[in-house]
């Protein structure tokens, strides 16, 4: 195959195996974890250093070639779907741990590092990296930074933004800036705070200074089963109100349990129950024991059918691996899966779940629920077959109605998966033109020409001041 001028130029900046351009290679990059949206990139680059990233950005920005950064491609909102006419910048090769400071509990890493690899590397020092998205065994720090990923333990430990102290970012002109840092406070605007969760539209983070957390001295995971999701939700509300400071509060419904139990991650969840609630408590033994007593009495009052507890690490890991494999395990139910991600005020979970169930029924879709109950972050999962065009249409329609139901209850469009392509056009449900304009201003302050991940997050009208559409531009000089 003869290389395009764009590819020839990129090859000058990277090693020969650092640029992919064959149609077969480009094809597999056409979507991320959300396979509904697809677009083929012109090329894929795999840099090994910040300098290489900067070189590629400088080159592409000067020619109006859009850049979409990608980690492991596990995102669920189409955040890494390529921009037509653009390139994908894959960070998987930048995966070194550069430094660990055990005393101040910080780690300096390259952003292609896999989330779980960091925790594994610092475990011997009694530390871990707290954000634990379900994709953590595959997803990268860079992707987590872009999406401000959450995870079950985000309930206590907070989302990614709380654990990112500083970043090295490549900006739209190819310049490299170090923003924030390990110190508690840094002068100036909190660029790190706003960069985290910007879904790759502000720049490309190549290094990160992360906060590490001491492994709690004592951990107990309680498992309660309930006749219905409703009973479980009631227990969650009461636990939150009573100040049970759980590290995680997770709910799974019967369909989810069945899918997990049929997989290699079978966790021994009770079958033939309506819902399972996982409550993890951590801290000193006295603290955990006091909280566990409280949680048990609340669960009992709310009609818990059975209770079991796990203290041994292997046993707890099994319970959590089951929970974290829920998404993949749904592959058994039907060929494709649409994972919705929305948030409602914690007091209204039960009410909104009932509406969501009705929506799925109306559209004749199979629904499974698994969610972060402690912070009201719902994940209705719709199983479907992408070869059935009508079913695809019904899935999208149901997804939108579910979002509307969440927003009407005072909630929001996404708790941890991001807006990406998937929800971009629903931003108007929550925000006014003025709100979106303010966000557009911040985006243009970072990326005046719209080089990074164009077409994502903000509805296109909010980006109106950006340069003409990249697809209409010449790809290379």
């Amino acid at each position, binding site marked *: 195959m003869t290389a395009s001028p764009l590819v020839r130029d990129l090859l000058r900046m990277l090693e020969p195996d650092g640029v992919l351009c064959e149609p077969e290679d480009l094809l597999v990059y056409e979507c991320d974890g959300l396979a509904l949206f697809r677009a083929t990139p012109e090329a894929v680059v795999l840099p090994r250093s910040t300098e290489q990233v900067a070189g590629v950005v400088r080159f592409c920005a000067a020619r109006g070639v859009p850049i979409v950064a990608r980690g492991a491609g596990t995102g669920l909102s189409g955040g890494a779907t390529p921009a037509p006419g653009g390139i994908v910048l894959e960070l998987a090769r930048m995966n070194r741990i550069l430094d660990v*400071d055990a005393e*101040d509990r910080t780690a300096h890493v390259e952003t292609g590092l896999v989330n779980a690899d960091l925790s594994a590397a610092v475990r011997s020092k009694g530390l871990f990296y707290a954000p634990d998205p379900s994709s953590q065994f595959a997803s990268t720090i860079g992707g987590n930074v872009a999406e401000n990923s*959450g995870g079950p333990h985000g309930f206590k430990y907070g*989302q990614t*933004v*709380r654990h990112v102290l500083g970043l090295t970012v490549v*900006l739209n002109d190819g310049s490299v800036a170090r*923003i*924030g*840092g390990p*110190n*508690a*406070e*840094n*002068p*100036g*605007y*909190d*660029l790190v*705070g*706003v960069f985290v*969760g910007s879904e790759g539209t502000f720049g490309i983070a190549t290094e990160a200074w992360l906060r590490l957390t001491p492994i709690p001295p004592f951990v107990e995971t309680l498992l309660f089963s309930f006749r219905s999701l409703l009973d479980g939700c009631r227990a969650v*509300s009461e636990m*939150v*109100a009573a*100040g049970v400071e759980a590290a995680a509060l997770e709910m799974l419904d019967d369909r989810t349990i069945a899918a997990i139990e049929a997989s290699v991650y079978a966790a021994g969840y009770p079958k033939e129950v309506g819902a399972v609630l996982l409550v993890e408590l951590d801290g*000193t033994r*006295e*603290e955990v024991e*006091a*909280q566990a007593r409280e949680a048990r009495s609340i669960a009992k009052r709310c009609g818990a059918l059975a209770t079991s507890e796990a203290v041994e690490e292997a046993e707890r890991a099994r319970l959590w691996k089951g929970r974290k494999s829920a998404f993949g395990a749904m592959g058994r139910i039907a060929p494709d899966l649409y994972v919705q991600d929305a*948030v*409602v*005020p*914690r*007091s209204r979970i039960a009410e909104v779940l009932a509406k969501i169930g009705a929506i799925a029924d109306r559209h004749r879709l199979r629904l499974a629920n698994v969610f*972060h109950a402690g*912070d*009201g972050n719902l994940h209705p999962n719709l199983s479907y077959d992408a070869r059935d065009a009508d079913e695809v249409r019904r899935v999208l329609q149901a997804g939108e109605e579910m979002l509307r139901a969440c927003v009407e209850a*005072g*909630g*929001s*469009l*996404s*708790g*941890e*998966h*991001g*807006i990406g392509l998937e929800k971009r056009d629903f*931003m108007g449900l929550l*925000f*006014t033109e*003025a*709100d979106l304009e*303010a*966000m557009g*201003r*911040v985006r243009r302050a*970072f990326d005046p020409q719209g080089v990074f991940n164009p077409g994502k*997050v903000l509805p296109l009208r909010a980006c109106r001041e950006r340069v003409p559409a990249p697809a209409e531009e010449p790809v290379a000089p």
Partner: protein
Amino acid sequence: MIATGKAGEALDRAGLGPVREADARRCSALGAEALPEVAPREPGQVAEVLRFCAKERLACVPVGGGTELSFGGVPRRVDLLVSTSNLTGVVEYAPADLTATVRAGTTLGVLRETVSRNRHEVPLEASGGDWATLGGVLAAASDGPRRLLWGSPREQVLGIAVAHPDGTIAKAGGRVVKNVTGYDLPRLHAGALGTLGVIVEATIRLRPKPRAARAAGVAFHELDAAAGFLRAVRASPLRPSTLDLLDPEGAQTAFGAEFAAGWLFLVRFDGEEAALEAEGGRLRALAAERGGRFLPFANPERVLLEDPRRIAWGGALLWLRASTVPSMVPTFLERIRREAGGRPVSALARAGIGTIHILAGGEFPLSEVPTFVGAARETARGLGASLLVVDAPPAARRDLPVWGEAPGGIAVMRRLKQAFDPEGVLSPGRFVEGL
């Protein structure tokens, strides 16, 4: 007609009044003799006032409780104060969701009182204490002794509404505790000192009030021993909610002879009664191992030094805030003490966080302020810390490098300022690099 100047008259004429004369202390904190002040009653009016200022090129400074007005550089120009004092009230308090949506001028005192009936607490602190307003606390990103438990004030903001000089009000975030919908503008405005817009409303996270609290002091004669204790506590499974370290001067000023002659740790635990008993025991054992005196406080509220100025002898002439990593705290304290060289300087370190407040007392020679600040800045640079001047007499402040070196990403910061305040009417010159 009061002396509200041309700006005041223009506002009055535009129907954006009433305009009153600002409090003299506020004026002097901004290095001005007298200033007009307007206090809109609705968020929309704040936006109107800002639009008017942009049109007329009037420089305005947003003010809440006025407790942090001296924070930052002296503005290049001030024509008007825009107060949130009439923008008060709790819009929505959702006890079951542990959130509250509040107008920016509401004081922490009122907010604390409101949520206490459900045994909730507001995870925010400020040197102005109950008098600080929510808008001010967020704009200054104020924190206090319990940041160790709660996290940064930025963590507590779930949603925000901000009035901009283009006359619009933009919301971001929401009212739910977990949210990644759109860019995290609450974080951008937290700590921006109102230089990008005026916060008019915010939704914050609340917490259930811990069932119990215990507190103790641990005193050491030598800084080395104190440093060892700090390392030991941080490496232990203990999770204090407060871990402050006072130098001997600070300890004596804040607590009197009771704690004289020693480096004093203030440690507090919040949680379950049974757990606190055990934690207290472990702390006592760690103190004993390192030769520290263990001094239990009967009232755990006493260890909460929300206002660092309480350690300044004879009032605070100069207030510096350094920010470093926890392991550097003892070294930093030792260097600053050396530079103070017997002058009335005391220090309070939020040792678990890495923030150090340095206060020069009322008797510190005014003429030596610039050289002392310069020396402190050198020390900070050498240790990789940042240092900023929180308060100094306006005359001295005008010439002091208040913020220090330009931070990383300054080009983006300039573009942000340009995007939100193209006329440069929001506190011009108060923020880093004259933004």
